[in-house]
């Protein structure tokens, strides 16, 4: 269903594209120095005031405020150097087809006489480079620790060195596959799936595999492991964009669960400088606050900080309209929360046999 030739092109042109960005940046800095000027780099400001909600994109974006980081400013020269070093470092990574974790970056710096006080500082510079290049760190082969997984009938073809051309069906192993660098960059070859089910918890992921949800509903199952890492969000977007699969999200019935769904759909404020990490057409199908009443689920009272979180989310522009405000109001009204596992009250398969089909039906009208 996807044309094979175009996939290869996509992958290698993407690499070429980013390498050009690195080179352009290096050349700019080089020639400024050579002309006797202190080099400087200008990029959008990431301060809270400059993060604004774009209604059309349905995500946060950076405003027009920008920051000039000049090597002439004594307070900037260190982060400036770190930024240039990082560009140099990831350029090598991309060139050699290697990847690195955030932690690796922190330690690698020491080999070049570059010091970061702690990983928080190196993470900050990595985000700076994302903003400068308008690219996610995964594009320059820097990944966080992976923890989310995918399972289902999807055949992929690796593009990472040493595995090029090798294919794998993601239904071959019932524990699922880590969504890491090699999977994130793999091309999609073939699938029989008609939807993607993203669930918040590993327990439910395993239940879905055991109950053959992938066969019964023709679904790919993804465990987001709480708030999904960017590579997982990127994967969800690709499944949606490249394979036209609808994305359905299942979380606990509390404000944090609702927000996991929201970040998958509309992105986070922290990634306001990035695109292609959202799935605007994604659907949150549960567990809603109103489901606690409807299905008489066992529940716990909301704590004070939970209620505080609900009030915060109510003011968030991403939550305007739809079921989002409505369900937040339900939490405030009943002041209770529940979990995906609560359906076990009606038997272990109640969630797959009864709840899931009902919610998928409702999703059509969302």
């Amino acid at each position, binding site marked *: 269903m996807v044309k094979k030739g175009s996939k290869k092109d996509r992958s290698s042109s993407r690499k070429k594209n980013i390498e050009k960005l*690195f080179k352009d*940046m*290096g050349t700019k800095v*080089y*020639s400024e120095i050579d002309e*006797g000027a202190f080099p400087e780099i200008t990029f959008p400001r990431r301060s809270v005031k400059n993060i604004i909600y774009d209604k059309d994109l349905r995500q946060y974006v950076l405003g027009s405020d920008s920051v000039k980081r000049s*090597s002439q*400013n*004594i307070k900037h020269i260190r982060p400036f150097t770190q930024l240039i070093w990082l560009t*140099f470092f990831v350029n090598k990574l991309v060139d050699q087809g290697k990847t690195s974790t955030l932690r690796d970056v922190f330690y690698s710096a020491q080999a070049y006489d570059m010091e970061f006080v702690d990983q928080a500082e190196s993470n900050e510079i990595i985000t700076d480079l994302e903003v400068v290049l308008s690219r996610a760190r995964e594009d320059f082969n820097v990944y966080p620790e992976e923890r989310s997984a995918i399972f289902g009938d999807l055949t992929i073809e690796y593009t990472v060195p040493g595995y090029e051309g090798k294919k794998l069906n993601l239904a071959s192993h019932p524990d699922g596959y880590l969504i890491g660098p090699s999977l994130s960059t793999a091309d999609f070859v073939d699938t029989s799936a008609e939807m993607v089910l993203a669930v918040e918890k590993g327990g439910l992921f395993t239940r879905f595999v055991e109950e053959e949800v992938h066969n019964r509903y023709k679904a790919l199952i993804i465990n987001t492991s709480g708030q999904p890492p960017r590579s997982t969000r990127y994967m969800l977007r690709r499944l949606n964009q490249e394979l036209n699969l609808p994305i359905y999200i299942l979380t606990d019935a509390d404000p944090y669960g609702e927000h996991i769904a929201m970040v998958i759909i509309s992105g986070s404020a922290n990634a306001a400088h990035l695109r292609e990490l959202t799935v605007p057409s994604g659907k949150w199908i549960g567990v809603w606050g109103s489901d606690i009443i409807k299905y008489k689920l066992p529940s716990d009272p909301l704590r004070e900080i939970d209620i505080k979180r609900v009030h915060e989310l109510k003011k968030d522009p991403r939550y305007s309209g739809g079921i989002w405000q409505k369900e937040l109001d339900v939490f405030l009204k009943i002041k209770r929360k529940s979990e995906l596992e609560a359906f076990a009250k009606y038997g272990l398969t109640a969630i797959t046999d009864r709840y899931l089909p009902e919610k998928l039906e409702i999703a059509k009208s969302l």
Partner: protein
Amino acid sequence: MTDERVEFSEISPSEFFYRNRDLAGFSSPSRALYSAIRELFENSLDACELYGILPDVFIRVTPLDLYTTDSDPKAYLIEVQDNGFGIPPKHVPKAFGQVFFGSKFQLKQSRGMFGMGGKMAILYGQITTNKPVSITTSVDGVQAFTFDILIDIQENAPIILKKSSHPAEGSTGTTVRLALNGDYQRASQKVREYFKQAAMVTPYANITFVDPYGRLIIYERGTKSMPPPSKEILPHPYGMDVEALRRLIRQSKEDIMVKFMSKSFHRVGDRVAKKFLDYVGFDQNRDPKSLSNDDITKFIRALHEYDNFLQPDASCLSPLGKENLMVGIEKELGPEFVAVATRPPSAYSGFPFIVEVGLAYGGKIIPSGTKLFRFANRIPLLYDEANDVSSKVINEVDWKRYKVPQNAPIAIITHICSTRIPYKTVGKEYLADRPELERELKNAVREALRKLKLYLSKKNSIAMVKRKLNIYSKYLPLIAKFSTELSGAKRLPRYDRLLNRKQIQGDREDDTEI
């Protein structure tokens, strides 16, 4: 200060001083040794300075019996040799063997008052060891005389045990050899501290000291410029007391009051004298010797009350001078920075004085915290620092105002010169907090601190530029290297031009990240 003592006419001055030796700094064997060394050394300096001779003073202290195994206290021999003017032989016996010999009623700045300290040392040595003091002196460098002298304490008269004459071999000056019972082990630290400080305040002197352990300590002359010798002046009316007045009257050849006053007092002429005598109600032509006890009391009270005497002038003072003070401080403390402040002459109770303050910062010798060195008429004051007016002034300084870092290594040197130093006690170790003196000290310390503040702020800005350049030198080569690799260029960009440029921008914070 000492004049009142003469009233005890029943006992001789020698006896009086011996009985009151505690007051004069001879209270214990260690203190006595220290005071004796000090008094003889200071007499030597005076003997040079009064005649404009750059002092070369040699001091040696040895156990009197070189082979003794006794522990302290024991008998020591102090030898002090100078290259001063020498003493005419006919004056030697009385100069060393009679208390109050040559008492002067004119005033000038000198270290000791009436050479009392030296005689006290001789007296103390004689009492504790029963040995005469030996003096060798030559005025002309041709012939030298040696005297062995004991003091007849009850009669206050010298007893010459031996007198001899021999060739001087070209050197003028005086050598005093004095035996006394002392405790060098206990005195050692003070003695060495004393010489170190003395060297600081007499930078034009060569001082050589050999201690009883045979250790040689040399303080070399750091300058050949010596403050001009002080001039003698008549006493100022404000400084008079009953006894001093009696002595003046006894000594005066004038037989009418107006002439007595104009010839005996500083800055008093016939006109001022007449006005004052009218004020006090005495006949101008009265014979001063006819004044009764009551008249004298009345006269003294009026002298102190009368507002129209002219202030004393400072020509009698010989301050060390900025240059000399600076040389002395640099020589002995090796500081990173020195500031010196000299105040214009001022006066208290008819005695003129000048305050000089030095401030030394940093270097290898000064420890952290504030160290005070006090001097009066070029004498180091080592005891009772906490009670001194200088301590009070320094404690009241608002250091923050001068941006001096906490516990910064600082030495403050205060020098007060006056025809009469306002010592609080006879021991001559600390100064009373006379308001005039306190005010002048405060102003001088502040002036020196302002100079330090300026220096520190300059130093800070230099350090800042240096620090910045260090940062640029560290990072610019790295930026050059990484950008070269990224761009694929064949050579490094010419970044050294950026390091040479002085366009180092201020720390602007307009683009801080969040």
